[in-house]
């Protein structure tokens, strides 16, 4: 016989509006082994928690059921209440009557009936719960940051400054990310390089940061506090331990590759650094464009290198890194707008995407900061088309959030650097942010023309060869417009990195509909994920501007720190175990476990589970024909009992 306490939360009116909470508590009191049942306005509040603490003492409760919001929300809160009252935290059951009852119905009869059924299931289950003891493990104090953009850089610096060792993994040959491509940043128009490069340099100099450029994570093992990560160091063909960054090699190189950094607007050498302020400032060889790799002859760089750092034999290597927590800051890609043929990107030379334009403005860019068309002429009129592929149900439903602002920035820079007329084609102007509306007003006053209507088509001008015509409906006047321009700038949707899903799989993350990494909770846990010890920062979570990204980086660093600051930590105790008396030795568990936790003891003829490797999915328990495997907290009898309770009323 157990002594169950049931605590029904109103959640203000969130629950009470469509579930008769007092009736639910009265009903609970009639259920088996329920000793006390109460309802209260906010169970998660301090008085609510105290009510539970007092009742545990007064009524000698040994099982607690909290009938409230989703367990994903407050399970931890109430577990702490149990622990504080001397009860094992696993004797708590949460009944989700908010997200899965009160919020999905308007009918109080239906809501109350369903809440009763769910509560009854919880009572049946609760009676069979057993105290579980968590495992205590040593925590590795190091952190890995994946992605060397502004988010990764900031997070790495913060953590390193606390004295923790940080591995910063970047797939490119330099850190810096997209921000290093920009010229100015909105709304303050301060120079991107001026604020970023000192940080990049700080990373390079920091004794606690191991920078791993040209690297990709290839395997993730282990669990929170003890990740064991394999990183693939891609062959650079330049031994960076020998290279003194004299860059003599780059001068001699006859190879021509396309500069990814300059968004393919210009060519670069086969041995190169992406841009002058790159960190590290040591070159790599692009195998695709290298004459030696292509033709078997050349090696001019090798001859030029006094340090003998060139190594054509270099292979990819694999480095094992052990860390306690991981921050993912893998950033974004711009949507490929070529498939949107109506905009003529890739077809008409006068159509650019936003990142290309960023490079045009940049003094270190292909044009040395001059705004010229591909033929070298200066545009006389420029159209900036917002929301290309975003806020578009046929492509990406989400708003990319920064396009309005950077488009305004573009307008300003166009005005500054050219005498062109600048037109915005927009759906709405979204300028929510500190100083943003003010920036918008300033641009309006700069004689930039705003046409409220989404650019529908970009076509070649029939009258003036070489010019383009932007077609749109001006939704203010209701008129259809055909505007001839020299240059069209597309502001495409910000989308997850092409390999975001692979990364999600590596780190066991969920992704949202667009493919951005899912946070544990959209409001209350925006930087943590469903995988313990893995945190996210920056645009890999969703489109955002630099201030927000940096803020997230600080936050993610603090989150990671909460783990690695400890020497030891407790793990979930909900692992599986084998009851040897029932094990028939079929080894199904050994065959199916994704983590290799079960093994077969041939001598005893039974399987055994290494709980340190078990993640508690319960797969082994369901393939065990003789029910010998006990999936703790989700045991067969607990699930069966819950089902029975759910189906009774």
């Amino acid at each position, binding site marked *: 016989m157990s002594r169950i306490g049931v605590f029904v939360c109103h959640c203000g009116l969130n629950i009470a509006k469509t579930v008769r909470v007092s009736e639910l508590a009265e009903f609970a009191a009639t259920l088996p082994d329920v000793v006390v049942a109460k309802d209260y306005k906010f169970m998660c509040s301090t008085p609510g928690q105290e009510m539970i603490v007092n009742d545990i003492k007064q009524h000698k409760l040994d099982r607690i059921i909290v009938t409230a919001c989703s367990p994903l929300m407050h399970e931890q809160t109430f577990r702490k209440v149990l622990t504080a009252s001397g009860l094992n935290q696993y004797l708590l059951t949460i009944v989700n009557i908010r997200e899965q009852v009160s919020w*999905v119905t308007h009918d109080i009869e239906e809501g109350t009936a369903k809440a009763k059924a769910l509560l009854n299931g919880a009572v049946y289950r609760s009676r069979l719960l057993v105290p579980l003891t968590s495992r205590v493990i040593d925590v590795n104090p190091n952190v890995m940051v994946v992605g060397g953009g502004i988010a990764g850089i900031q997070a790495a610096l913060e953590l390193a400054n606390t004295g923790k060792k940080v591995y910063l993994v970047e797939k490119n040959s330099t850190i810096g990310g997209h921000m290093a491509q920009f010229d100015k940043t909105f709304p303050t128009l301060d120079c991107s390089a001026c604020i970023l490069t000192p940080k990049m340099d700080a990373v390079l100099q920091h004794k606690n940061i191991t920078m791993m450029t040209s690297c990709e994570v290839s395997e993730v093992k282990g669990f929170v506090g003890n990740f064991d990560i394999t990183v693939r160091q891609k062959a650079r063909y330049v031994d960076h331990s020998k290279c003194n960054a004299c860059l003599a090699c780059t001068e001699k190189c006859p190879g021509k590759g396309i500069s990814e950094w300059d968004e393919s607007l210009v060519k670069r050498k086969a041995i190169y650094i992406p841009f002058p302020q790159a960190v590290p400032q040591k070159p790599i060889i692009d195998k695709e464009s290298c004459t030696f790799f292509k033709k078997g002859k050349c090696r001019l760089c090798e001859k030029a290198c006094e340090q003998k750092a060139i190594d054509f034999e270099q292979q990819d290597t694999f480095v094992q890194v052990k860390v306690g927590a991981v921050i993912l800051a893998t950033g974004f890609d711009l949507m490929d707008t070529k498939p949107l043929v109506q905009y003529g990107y890739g077809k008409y030379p006068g159509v650019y995407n936003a990142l290309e334009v960023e490079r045009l403005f940049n003094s270190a860019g292909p044009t040395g900061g001059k705004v010229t068309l591909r033929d070298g002429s200066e545009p006389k009129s420029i159209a900036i088309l917002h929301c290309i592929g975003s806020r578009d149900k046929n492509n990406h439903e989400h708003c990319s959030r920064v396009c309005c602002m950077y488009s305004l920035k573009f307008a300003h820079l166009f005005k500054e650097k050219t005498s062109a007329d600048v037109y915005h084609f927009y759906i709405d102007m979204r300028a929510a942010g500190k100083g943003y509306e003010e920036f918008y007003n300033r641009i309006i006053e700069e004689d930039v023309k705003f046409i409220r209507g989404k650019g529908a088509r970009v076509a070649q001008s029939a009258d003036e060869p070489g010019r383009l015509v932007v077609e749109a409906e001006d939704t203010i006047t209701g008129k259809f417009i055909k505007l001839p321009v020299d240059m069209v700038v597309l502001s495409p949707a910000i989308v997850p990195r092409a390999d975001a899903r692979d990364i999600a799989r590596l780190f066991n993350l969920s992704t949202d509909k667009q493919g951005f990494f899912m946070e544990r909770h959209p409001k209350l846990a925006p930087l943590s994920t469903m995988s313990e010890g893995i945190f996210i920062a920056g645009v890999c979570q969703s489109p955002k501007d630099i201030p927000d990204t940096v803020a997230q980086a600080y936050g993610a660093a603090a989150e990671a720190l909460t783990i690695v600051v400890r020497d030891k930590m407790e793990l979930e105790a*909900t692992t599986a175990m084998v009851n040897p008396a029932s094990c028939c030795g079929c080894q199904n568990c050994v065959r199916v476990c994704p983590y290799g936790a079960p093994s077969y003891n041939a001598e005893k003829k039974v399987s055994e589970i290494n709980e340190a490797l078990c993640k508690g999915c319960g797969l082994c328990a369901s393939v065990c024909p003789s029910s010998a495997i006990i999936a703790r907290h989700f045991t067969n009898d607990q699930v069966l009992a819950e089902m029975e309770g759910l189906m009774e009323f």
Partner: protein
Amino acid sequence: MSFEPKILGIACNWCTYTGADLAGTTRLQYPQNLRVVRVMCSSRINPSFIFRAFQLGADGVLIGGCHPGDCHYNTGNLYARRRLAVTKKILEFSGLEPGRFRVEWISASEGNKFAEVVTEFTAQIKSLGPQTKFKISQ
């Protein structure tokens, strides 16, 4: 009174249960006939749970898991897919209406899919009427 079926849902913690929460957070409305058991992974679902659910009087059983390939435990739902497919065939050959058992992959971000599936499945179970074949008569 019209027939209000009892539907048992078994949802994985990481995708479908979270997706169900999302449906709530976004205030999507769907019928209240579904009662969800939370398990960590759809692969935890022992086929006998489903037989048992029907014996307990469930008019329908709905299983929700992560999309294949997106399993929080890498491969759990790939095993679950095979095992539950067999469960379905067994139920069918034993004479239970095949429409009473359904497996859906619903991700954590698919709150609308969750609501749609529940709405549609509930309507389907209503049209099938009460399940009496497996139900234990007391």
